[in-house]
Each structure stands twice: as structure tokens, then as C-alpha cells.
């Protein structure tokens, strides 16, 4: 492919549809109970630091995956809604355009990647992100001996001044791709790769897969009539589709 073709391709809005993968996730809010198993799974998988009480008090927690709570109504009709919030891997991500040094960009799998060793810490991406899923390393966080022995060797530990965020467990995606290659397969099969959050979810609310493959579970889930995208009016084209919670029992699945 000539350079010109490449440029032309990347100029088209939906260019990622032509690639092998377009990783995406669906979150079934009707299944999600807000139990936060995903939060710890993410922390364990991705070496998220233990920031300590004072950092929490200053709202400097680092949780790539978090659960947001929204109440409706007043007592006694108060209702609580949970919504897991993590990087939406937007195809038209505001954060990507913001980085002066290409520390974040869109890779060929439709992932919004964050390259830690490239980041200089202007934090513009976090300002631009409507979902507030980017987390900054205000300090170099350390682990009390011997907690650091738990750290996942496939994921780097970030130092002070670096922005970080959900990667859809890119290390797992890579491993799955390697295995597929060892097997002489061009593509990873549906279900072969699951990020830590989806893997741990006790209610199977999170489904991960390739949105380019119309037969994948996630594609089918994304076409559910309950599907919507959070802050759709921001036109960020997220790769995460939420399935709306069903209110009342008359609406069958």
C-alpha cells in the first residue's frame, strides 16, 4: 500500500472497520450489580498502585475501572443505578488529539493506547476525556514489601508524572494473538481473550470481543435494542456499548 493510500484510508472516519479487530465491550446494566469485583480484578491485573488514604482524601485514586452510582427518586422510592465506567476506547477520542507527543493514539485494533514511556505529563488528555477515565501518577507509588511480588510482569509499573488508563488488557490481547499465531490462525477466536474485569464479573455483565466480527458475542450484544453509548452527544464513538437497565418487569428481554 502506498503512502497516499494509507493517508487516504486514515482520512476516512471509519477506517478501523477495515482492520482485523475492533475490540469492544458491552456492559449489560441489567446484569451489573455494582459488586466491584471488576475493580479489584483490574487493580490486580494492571499493577494499579495502592495510593494510600491521604491520596484518596485528595481524590487521587487510580482505578481504571470504577463504578459510578446514580440515585433516582427520594425515599422510599429511591433507586440506585450502577454504571461501570472505564476507558470507552473511543474511535473519535478527544484525548488522542490532545496529546502533543503522541503518547496516546489509536492503534490498528481500534484501541486507544497509552504509551507510558512517551508521556510527559501535560494531562491534557485527562481534561479532554469526557468520561474522566484517565488517571495521573501524582507520585511514584510504591508497594510495601513484599506486596510488589504480586505485580504482573506483563504490565509496566508507571512512574510519577505519567498518565494511565484502561487498556482493555492489551497484554492479554497480545498473548491471545501470539497463541493464534502459534496455531497458524490469522485471527483470534471469539472468547479467547477477555480482559480482567470481564473475566471476573460474577454476573457476566461485561462481554468483550471483536466488533468487526458480526458473529462475535459482543457484536450481537451491541445490537441489542437496549444498547446505547454514554454521553452519545459528545460524538466520541465509544467502543463500549451499554445495555440499558430494564425498569419494571413488563419489558421482557
Amino acid at each position, binding site marked *: 500500500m502506498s503512502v497516499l493510500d494509507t493517508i487516504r484510508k486514515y482520512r476516512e472516519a471509519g477506517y478501523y472497520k477495515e482492520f482485523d479487530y475492533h475490540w469492544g465491550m458491552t456492559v449489560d446494566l441489567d446484569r451489573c450489580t455494582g459488586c466491584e469485583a471488576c475493580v479489584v480484578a483490574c487493580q490486580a491485573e494492571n499493577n494499579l498502585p495502592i495510593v494510600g488514604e491521604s491520596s484518596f482524601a485528595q481524590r487521587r485514586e487510580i482505578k481504571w475501572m470504577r463504578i459510578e452510582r446514580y440515585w433516582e427518586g427520594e425515599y422510599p422510592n429511591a433507586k440506585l443505578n450502577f454504571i461501570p465506567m472505564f476507558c470507552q476506547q473511543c474511535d473519535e477520542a478527544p484525548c488522542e*488529539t490532545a496529546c502533543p507527543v*503522541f503518547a496516546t493514539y489509536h492503534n490498528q485494533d481500534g484501541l486507544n493506547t497509552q504509551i507510558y514511556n512517551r508521556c510527559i505529563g501535560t494531562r491534557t488528555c485527562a481534561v479532554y476525556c469526557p468520561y474522566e477515565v484517565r488517571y495521573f501518577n501524582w507520585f511514584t507509588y510504591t508497594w510495601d514489601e513484599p506486596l510488589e511480588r504480586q505485580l504482573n510482569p506483563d504490565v509496566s509499573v508507571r512512574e510519577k508524572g505519567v498518565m494511565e488508563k484502561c487498556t482493555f488488557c492489551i497484554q492479554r490481547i497480545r498473548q491471545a494473538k501470539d497463541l493464534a499465531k502459534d496455531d497458524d490462525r490469522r485471527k483470534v477466536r471469539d472468547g479467547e481473550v477477555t480482559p480482567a474485569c470481564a473475566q471476573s464479573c460474577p454476573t457476566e455483565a461485561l462481554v468483550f470481543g471483536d466488533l468487526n466480527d458480526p458473529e462475535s458475542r459482543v457484536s450481537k450484544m451491541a445490537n441489542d435494542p437496549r444498547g446505547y453509548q454514554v454521553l452519545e452527544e459528545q460524538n466520541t464513538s465509544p467502543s463500549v456499548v451499554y445495555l440499558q437497565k430494564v425498569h419494571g418487569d413488563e419489558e421482557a428481554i
Partner: protein
Amino acid sequence: MDITGTFQYEEDAISAAQGLHAAGIKNVSLMSPIPMHAAEKALGLGKSNVRKFTLIGAILGGLGGFSMCVATALVFIMPTGGRAIIALPPYLLITYETTILIGVLSTLVGFFLVAKLPAWKNRPYRVEANVNRFVVAVESPSSNEVKKAEQIIRGAGALGIEQTGGTL
């Protein structure tokens, strides 16, 4: 050896300089504490060549800036935000800035070249020229020009005349 003549009045100095020019004496310079627009006209200094530097610099800066954006974007194709790799609005902004940047820098270069600066050594100069006097200097005149020059300068009403080595 240079000749310098000091004048109290602008007109005198200008007429001395014009006289020297008319006499075919080369390397005449007229020094003044403030810019003399009348003198510039009299000495035939029209539109300065600096403007060419500015124009060419700005054009090159604009082209260069835009090419830099395009070229660096093509070294690594890094799609961001679903936007075009060669995106005009942001690149034009950069172009705008580089136009000015290079325009300013080349104007500076142009200034140095046209004004023949910096030149730190061996040039005729009188410190009064920077206070309230006008100085006409003839740089290294040939031996037959010396007399003539002194005559013209004195004739124009110089307060004093000196033969000096390069003082600056």
C-alpha cells in the same frame, strides 16, 4: 586612516555627505543620534532590501512549517481521534506560526546583511554621533581624496575635523 567631520545641524551634515558623494568619494557614512528620514532620501536610500528577506522568509517558513507537519506525520502514521493524518485546520495554525517565526528570523538576518552588521572593529566613529552631533566619515580615503574630502566637510560647516584610525 579615516576622516571624520562633526556637525551640529542635520542639514549641514547632509550637504557634506551629498558633496562627498558628488565628488565621487567612496565609503562615506553619515552618522546621527536619531534616524534622519530627510538624509535617507537625500542619500538615495529608498525601499530597503530587508523586505525581501521578510517576504521570502515568511513564505519559506509557511511552506516549511506545513511540510514539517505533513512529513513528521508520515514518519509514523499515528491516527488520533479518528481525525485525518494530514489535517488542514491544525496544520494551518502551525503554518501560521512558522510563517511568522521564520519571517522574523529572516528579517533579522536581512537586517544584519543589509546593514552590514555586526562589525566591531576599525571603523571611523565619534561618540558624539550618538548624543547630539552629526558625523560624516570617510573610510580609508586614498591619499588624493583626503584633501578634497576635508575641504568639502569643512565647507559644509563642520565643527571639527579629525583624522583618525578606526576608533570603533
